[in-house]
């Protein structure tokens, strides 16, 4: 799928995502937010960073841009929309995904490598995935997922923070997210948001255990 990687002012991870997509053999290019033409692409990725400085609430200012109107169109056409970290925050603020992402429980930025358990296989990233426990890093201050309807949240969840054996425990929850949710998708599965950074788990040299689980997720875009 021809994939656009959008850069808002303040986005920091667009080059990392682009490099990882290339590594996963995805046809991708970086597009500046004002220059985005949704008709040219079948998929769009909103990378991590601090769009508009994360001022007001992370992702809130980006959510009201013209660019996001176009992304919404893509989503309603069934095209693929992926949001990573700040991208997830933007998707939630713009209403493309349900719920909210609140400040971490300990009110601090957290940078660490975690394990996530895959609990839905009907999304574009997780379809046909054999490995169910993935290792990748998080780096965020506003990653605590919240939804008023716990049952709904459960049905939408795609990734849950767990330990290396897949136990979804409180100890494995880095930020107080409801049900340990690290990522969700819409009901159709074409819009996916996740706080962990798969692009940072796509290269052996910089993975602490040389695993490249991020590539497993991005391969979903190479078809």
């Amino acid at each position, binding site marked *: 799928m021809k994939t656009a990687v959008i850069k808002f002012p303040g986005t920091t991870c667009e080059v990392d995502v682009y490099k990882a997509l290339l590594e996963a053999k995805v046809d991708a290019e970086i597009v500046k937010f004002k220059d985005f033409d949704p008709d040219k692409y079948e998929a769009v990725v909103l990378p991590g960073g601090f769009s*508009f*400085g994360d*001022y*007001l609430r992370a992702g809130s*200012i980006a959510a*009201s841009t013209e660019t996001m109107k176009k992304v919404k169109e893509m989503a309603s056409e069934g095209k693929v929309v992926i949001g990573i970290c700040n991208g997830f925050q933007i998707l939630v603020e713009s209403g493309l995904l349900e719920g909210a992402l609140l400040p971490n429980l300990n009110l601090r930025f957290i940078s660490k490598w975690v394990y996530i358990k895959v609990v839905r296989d009907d999304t574009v990233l997780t379809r046909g995935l054999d490995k169910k426990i993935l290792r990748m890093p998080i780096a965020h201050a506003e990653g605590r997922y919240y939804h008023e309807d716990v049952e709904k949240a459960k049905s939408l969840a795609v990734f849950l923070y767990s330990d290396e054996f897949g136990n979804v425990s409180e100890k494995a929850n880095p930020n107080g997210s409801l049900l340990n949710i690290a990522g969700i998708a819409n009901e159709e599965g074409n819009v996916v948001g996740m706080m962990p950074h798969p692009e940072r788990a796509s290269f052996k040299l910089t993975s602490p255990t040389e695993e490249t689980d991020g590539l497993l997720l991005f391969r979903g875009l190479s078809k």
Partner: protein
Amino acid sequence: MLYYVELIIMNKDGVRDPEGETIQRYVVNRFTSEILETRAGKYLLFKVNANNQQEAENLVRKLAEEMRLYNPIVHKIEVKVIRSENGSN
């Protein structure tokens, strides 16, 4: 008597407020030209046990100063009692 006391912490006038500026430039200006300036700050609401309104206000002010709720070099504060319980306002 219980008093509800607001503490608003903002940057002093003349001290930059990037958050307010960014909201003004990228959100407010796209919505209307009638709003001229935006300043951002922090809002805290305290429920205070005190004998009178002045006492409640003084207590919150003292808290803010001694416990460094704000940095007097860059911030200014507004302390306001907004209502009380178990008695008249």
